């Protein structure tokens, strides 16, 4: 198992210290300091290109940083050994917008891909995966009687159901940090409600989440704390209780104006 034992007590599930990422000459992230508590839902907001996606990709081992440190459960991370698989082992799960499920694959494959239940020759125990997938669908996600089972392909699911599958997968593997990348984008209102309920389940089950969202109303209502990114830097840390939705909106518009001013 991991040297960063997931079962010991810790203050922060993840903490970034002066994290920077550059793609060639473009600095995508500059000196990011961010700490997330063990049962905290952090809303990450910012304009397109502010660096939200780059930040979570760095936290989950998809992109290596140019400089800086990362602490998981208060223990330093060795970048040389950090990868998506390692992040999985450390119980980090990402629910990417439209990018975390294989469209043409059945749900029993999608739940377990990358962590298949196999015999020692690497052959998948299909029956067992199918049974567990059906259990997750019916008990954890409440997909009873909607004509979806472990053999359904992702292509048949609605947008909200897809996010539910990805969140259910994260909860099944006992993730301590679930990262949601714009899970409600392009969803109908009814579907959005489903997703917001899934996020509430994350909080209620004692886990932490990073929640990237364009819709300020959703994130304001759900998050314990809002982190505003702008051009690769964190420009504000806001408690929703301290700032109303209207003020938050004004704050972000002002930020846009300074950006345009700076560009001119």
């Amino acid at each position, binding site marked *: 198992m991991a040297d960063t034992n997931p079962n010991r007590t810790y203050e922060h599930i993840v903490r970034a210290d002066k994290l920077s990422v550059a793609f060639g000459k473009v600095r995508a992230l500059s000196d990011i300091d961010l700490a997330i508590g063990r049962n905290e839902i952090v809303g990450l907001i910012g304009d397109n290109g502010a660096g939200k996606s780059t930040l979570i990709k760095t936290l989950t081992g998809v992109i290596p940083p140019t400089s800086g440190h990362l602490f998981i459960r208060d223990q330093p991370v060795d970048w040389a050994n950090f990868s998506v698989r390692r992040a999985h082992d450390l119980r980090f799960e990402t629910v*990417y917008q439209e990018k975390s499920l294989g469209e043409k694959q059945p749900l029993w494959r999608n739940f377990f*891909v*990358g962590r*298949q239940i196999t015999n020692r020759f690497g*052959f998948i125990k299909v029956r067992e995966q199918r049974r567990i997938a059906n259990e997750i669908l*019916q*008990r954890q996600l409440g997909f009873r009687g909607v004509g979806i*089972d472990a*053999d359904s392909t992702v292509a048949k699911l609605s947008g909200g159901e897809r996010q539910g599958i990805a969140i259910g997968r994260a909860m099944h593997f006992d993730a301590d940090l679930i990262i949601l990348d714009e899970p409600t984008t392009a969803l109908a209102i009814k579907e959005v409600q489903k997703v917001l309920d899934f996020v509430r389940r994350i909080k209620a089950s004692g886990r932490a989440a990073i929640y990237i969202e364009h819709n300020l109303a959703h994130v304001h209502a759900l998050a314990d704390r809002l982190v505003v990114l702008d051009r690769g830097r964190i420009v504000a840390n806001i408690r929703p209780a301290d700032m109303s939705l209207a003020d938050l909106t004004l704050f972000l518009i002002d930020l846009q104006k300074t950006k345009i001013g700076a560009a001119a």
Partner: protein
Amino acid sequence: MSDTPLKQPAPALNPRAAAKLEGLPIIIVFFVLIGLFVGFAPTVFLHWPIYNSFLVTIPPMMILSLGLTLVIAAGEIDLSFPAVIALSGFLFAHVTRTYDAPWLGLLAAIAGGALIGVVNGFLIAVIGIPSIIITIGTSFFWSGIATVLSGGMSYTLERLTGTAINGILSGTVLGIPSEAFWALGVAVVVWFILNRHRFGEHLLFIGDSREVARVVGINTLRERIKLFTLMGALGGFAAVLLTLENLSYFPTQGQGMLLSALAAVFIGGTSVFGGTATVVGSFFGALIIGMLDAGIVATGVAGFWVEVIVGLVFVAAVVLHIGIDDPARIRQLQRRLFSKA
């Protein structure tokens, strides 16, 4: 997970699974075709010799189609296998003649094919060159190497008549050519790799979307290099079967197989788009492609028509499969055509 008892236990048998027997449409086409051949040329198709010759000629091409099924499942393509047939066939012939060690020759052929595969995989996965481009290039290169090494000459391997390797790979078992058993064995192994092994699942996800595959933690570089290596090794094995069948090597062997092997995969119903594939389909696809040639001639249609009919069968099969997999696409097409008219 909560332990609340379920009112309805999950159904043990999925009705859809039963209705969706893998490769069913192509199996039906196969038997219809046999029926047609028997109807039009009963003197040929009601007797064993024609089937015996199919079971000798089809296996090398079928083994290539089976490997290609995995490649296409991963959203890639490999056009370099005719060059593998040429080079691995040369390695087998050369080692056999020079050292009198045909088993070592078999190993050399498979290793040579695997090496070509590693190079392909590296150029595709690590350098990032699209597989359709790079395998055209490597195909020229390796078949050129085969011609240079062999001096463009063909080698006879009559000396292998009656040897163990000839008996085991190219003899008969219970009156059935052993090549057929080898091809069947490869088909079973490839089916299990694709449908039941972790590696096959990774290929399906890579074919579905490379981005998703990466995000769920699949090492897309390593898996694709493994894929092309396996394809190369299968090509090397097919080369030995082909060389043994003729008991001679010629540098142009395998050149006619490019289109046949690919056609077998697509006729079988494997999607051009990656992410889904059917090994059963490719198996019957290879049988159909392999039978059409002799079958059409035997029914009395002039030999010139063979390719026309193969082309028709190919296009019809691909359209049929798209219709079965994705009826919405056909309906959409219908709407578009009629609303414009």
